[in-house]
């Protein structure tokens, strides 16, 4: 390698050396060949048809991809909005449904049973008071909505049965305080 003197080495910078690379240029013959080859390839590109799947993909990739992305985003947002509502009301819905199925029939049955109880039937042994249970009066007087049900109801018909007096209800029913027997 031809060594340069220190004086001249100091004058040359990296930028100067890199600028020399601008002069590495092809000659005219190269560009002639380049143009011919490029024109041929461009003609082939114009004539050549893409495979069917490429055409389909190209046709769909523009708007279809955009609309698909929007649809997926909308679906995702919808899932995020609706799902917490399901999770939050899951237990409540179950209780309401269970309650609703038990409300109508038992309460009406109790009312009918109460109306049939008269003093003659009890042979004058009644030493307790019967509170009539009526869905109409209860719901009219009380400031609440009837949203409960009764699983069972037993009446004491004699003093021996006092201990068996039970107004059986589910725990959820207890808070409503509609049915009670006062002795």
């Amino acid at each position, binding site marked *: 390698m031809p060594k340069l003197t220190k004086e001249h080495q100091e004058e040359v910078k*990296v930028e100067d050396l890199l600028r*020399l690379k601008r002069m*590495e240029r092809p000659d005219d013959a*190269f560009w002639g060949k*380049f143009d011919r080859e490029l024109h041929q390839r461009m003609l082939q590109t114009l004539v050549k048809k893409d495979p069917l799947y490429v055409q389909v993909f190209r046709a769909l990739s523009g708007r279809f991809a955009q609309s698909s992305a929007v649809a997926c985003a909308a679906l995702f947002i919808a899932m995020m909005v609706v799902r917490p509502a399901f999770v939050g009301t899951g237990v409540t819905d179950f209780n309401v449904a269970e309650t609703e199925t038990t409300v109508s029939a038992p309460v009406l049955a109790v009312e009918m049973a109460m109306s049939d109880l008269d003093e003659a039937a009890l042979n004058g042994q009644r030493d307790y008071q019967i509170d009539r249970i009526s869905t109409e009066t209860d719901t009219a007087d009380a400031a609440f909505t009837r949203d409960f049900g009764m699983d069972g109801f037993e009446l004491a018909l004699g003093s021996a049965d006092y201990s068996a007096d039970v107004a059986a209800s589910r725990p959820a029913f207890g808070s409503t305080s509609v049915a009670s027997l006062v002795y």
Partner: protein
Amino acid sequence: MDATSSTTKSIFPAQEAQVSQRDLDWAVVQKVQSGNVGAFDQLVQKYREQIFSVVYNMTSNREDASDLTQDAFIKAFQAIGRFQGKSSFFTWLYRIAINSTMTFLKKRNRRRFISYENINEEVSSSEIFERLTAKNQSEKGALISELQEKLNDALQKLSLKHRTVVILHEIEGLEHAEIAEITKTSVGTVRSRLHYAKHQLQAYLKDYIG
């Protein structure tokens, strides 16, 4: 831009010229988009040497550079219908060429076939070269070959990202902002890469720069 405005003195003449070039290119692009396929040749003639130069300096192989430059123009031709003019055609074309070259070089991996372009005669008469060979005129030819080899070797030692930035700035003469747009990075990143790349090159070429 009309003749009157082009002769008007401006604070930013380079930027004005750039805008003008962009408008001219956009007009040609619109011709091609409207079906005048032959108009694309104007763009090829205008940018082929710049694109080739970038690709050649990235690959250090004239045959690969030729193929990749053609690929870049064909890709641009195929996609020109989707070009909306948001960036300049020149930036867009550079980006296509650089991305294709990077993909090619990553695939090529360690296999390196060097085939240099002939250095133009004007190198030997350049001021820089005169300084390099001031003391030894008889070894001029040997020094040209050796310098060419060393420079290409040094560039190939840089990572692709650093090589791209240093080529675009130091050899192609692009501004930092233009390089940032082409490489889709910030101007700060471009400056940082450039600084690092030059520092590396100084180490590789210390025999020439002392």
